[in-house]
């Protein structure tokens, strides 16, 4: 270790950085070209201009397009005048780069927008057709004349929903705490092992978070049967993953000064966390958690639609029977409870700060 030449270290590091950016830029350019060709060919040309209903799909064709795009993208990247090389800051600074950046950038944005428009099947005609307007009017008038006979039943169901959300939030707290500390980069960059834990946890929680609570509810209602328990588990798992991200970001954005000062006294990791990290994150944590309860109440109603219990389950039953007056009452009650929860959680969060 004593005979390291600092200049070598510097030079090596710089070369490595540039090489990394080159590779990344080439891959990104490949992607841009591939994407443009696909969108223009499939969506704009075949689907919109030729109006082909079922565009034949073949892996060979895609493969050929990919191969050509790869060659074009990489060659383009190598000239140092491509979009990505500009994005990664390794481009040649000349007017060619400037024009490719502007023209190709615009092109990408526009084909994306146009393709989006085509795929969404946006149609003003459908929105204001006579038939459509009549149906809408029927539902709206029923919703505004709610059927009060099922009030007791609905009240009970909505209380169930609030409790499902509450329990999911409370149970999530201790688990989230552990996960968030272990997935905060500034606490886990000690050595390879802790970094491995950090990366794994990030990966898992990103994965879990990317699956909507609705899907989790479906999974759990198959797993343990339809009802509030399945709904609670769905919310729990989603709360943990979402809040762990918020918590760990709060931990990563704390003031470094106190951490440095406490570690300079010779304190160990746990002591540093207790004295320098925890006091800085208590308020944000509380605030996130209360907000999560609020979100969970909204989600609990949705989750009920797929068998997660509570008011949502009731709603889907009456909707299935097309009893719109009953649905009206339920919708109004949901809106009311959500609004109250929102109000309370905002008030509490304001009081904390």
């Amino acid at each position, binding site marked *: *270790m*004593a*005979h*390291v*030449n*600092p200049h070598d*270290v*510097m030079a090596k*590091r*710089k070369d490595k*950085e540039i090489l990394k950016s080159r590779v990344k830029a080439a891959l990104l350019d490949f992607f841009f070209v591939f994407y443009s060709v696909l969108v223009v060919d499939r969506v704009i040309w075949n689907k919109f201009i030729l109006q082909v209903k079922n565009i034949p799909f073949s892996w060979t064709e895609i493969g050929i397009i990919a191969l050509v795009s790869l060659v074009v993208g990489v060659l383009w990247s190598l000239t140092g005048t491509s979009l990505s090389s500009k994005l990664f800051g390794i481009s040649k600074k000349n007017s060619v780069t400037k024009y490719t950046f502007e023209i190709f950038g615009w092109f990408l944005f526009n084909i994306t927008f146009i393709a989006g428009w085509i795929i969404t099947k946006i149609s003003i005609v459908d929105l204001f057709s006579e038939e459509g307007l009549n149906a809408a009017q029927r539902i709206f008038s029923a919703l505004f004349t709610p059927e009060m006979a099922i009030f007791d039943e609905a009240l009970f169901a909505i209380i169930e929903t609030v409790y499902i959300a509450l329990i999911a939030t409370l149970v999530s707290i201790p688990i989230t705490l552990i996960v968030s500390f272990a997935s905060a980069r500034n606490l886990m960059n000690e050595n390879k092992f802790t970094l491995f834990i950090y990366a794994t946890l990030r990966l898992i929680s990103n994965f879990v978070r990317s699956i909507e609570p609705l899907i989790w509810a479906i999974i759990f209602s198959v797993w343990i049967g339809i009802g509030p328990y399945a709904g609670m588990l769905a919310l729990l798992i989603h709360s943990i993953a979402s809040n762990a991200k918020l918590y760990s970001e709060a931990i990563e954005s704390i003031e470094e*000064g*106190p951490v*440095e*000062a*406490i*570690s*300079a*006294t*010779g*304190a*160990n990791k*746990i*002591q540093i966390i*207790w*004295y*320098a990290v925890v*006091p*800085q994150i208590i308020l944000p944590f509380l605030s996130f958690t209360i907000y999560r309860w609020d979100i969970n109440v909204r989600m609990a109603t949705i989750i009920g639609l797929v068998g997660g219990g509570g008011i949502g389950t009731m709603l889907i039953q009456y909707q299935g029977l097309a009893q719109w007056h009953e649905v009206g009452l339920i919708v109004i009650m949901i809106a009311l409870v959500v609004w109250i929860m929102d109000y309370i959680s905002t008030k509490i969060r304001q009081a904390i700060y």
Partner: protein
Amino acid sequence: MTILKVDNIHKIYPSGTHALKGVSFEVKDGEFLVIIGLSGSGKSTLLRCINRLHEPTSGEITFLDKDITHVKGKELRGIKQQIGMVFQQFNLIKRRSVLTNVITGRLGKLGTFQSITENFSPELIEEAMNALRIVGIEEKAYKRADSLSGGQQQRVAIARSLMQNPKLLLADEPVASLDPATSNSVMHYFEKINKELGTTVICNLHFLSLVRKYASRVIALKAGEIIYEGLPHDIDEKWFKTIYGEEAEEVEIR
């Protein structure tokens, strides 16, 4: 007796900045060494390498005849315990009491369980009060740290480092965010600790008037290298321009 020996230290940050380029010097027991230099010259980096908040890229640091350049874990914590550090931004725990802040100086010697249950003995609390007495603010002991003025917070930070009974006290521009009068009073406490407790002090400073008043020896850094080493009174006009650049003019702070 030599308490600290820094030998050909280089520090390259992961970002690629070459902050220290072969710095070597020695510090004798009981000295009040002041490091000066422009912003970005590497003063803070040097102090952080000495108490191993940062690990030097190459070179060797010897503290109390022990090579501490690459020590790790428990051993590293043991070294940190013997070196106090005071920061420009005070770095207190804002939401906790002054007394708790001072006690954190002793964490290295307390058990983990005892420190997170905050079960402190009356003797420990008395010692903390005593440290506060040395810097003259024992009446603030139960105030929240962030309710104090800048100068008072810096004195709390000094008291915290005193709880370590440090052999060596590092101070990174301890008065840079304070007004001139407060600066002088805070510097006074460093002098007191140096003279009365015999603690060796290494301090980064910006104002030459303070340097002349308190330093027993001066080192000047420029772009990561030592360009001056000597007595504070030998820094004449010519040296001043070399250290701070041709444009610079000396400002007086009393």
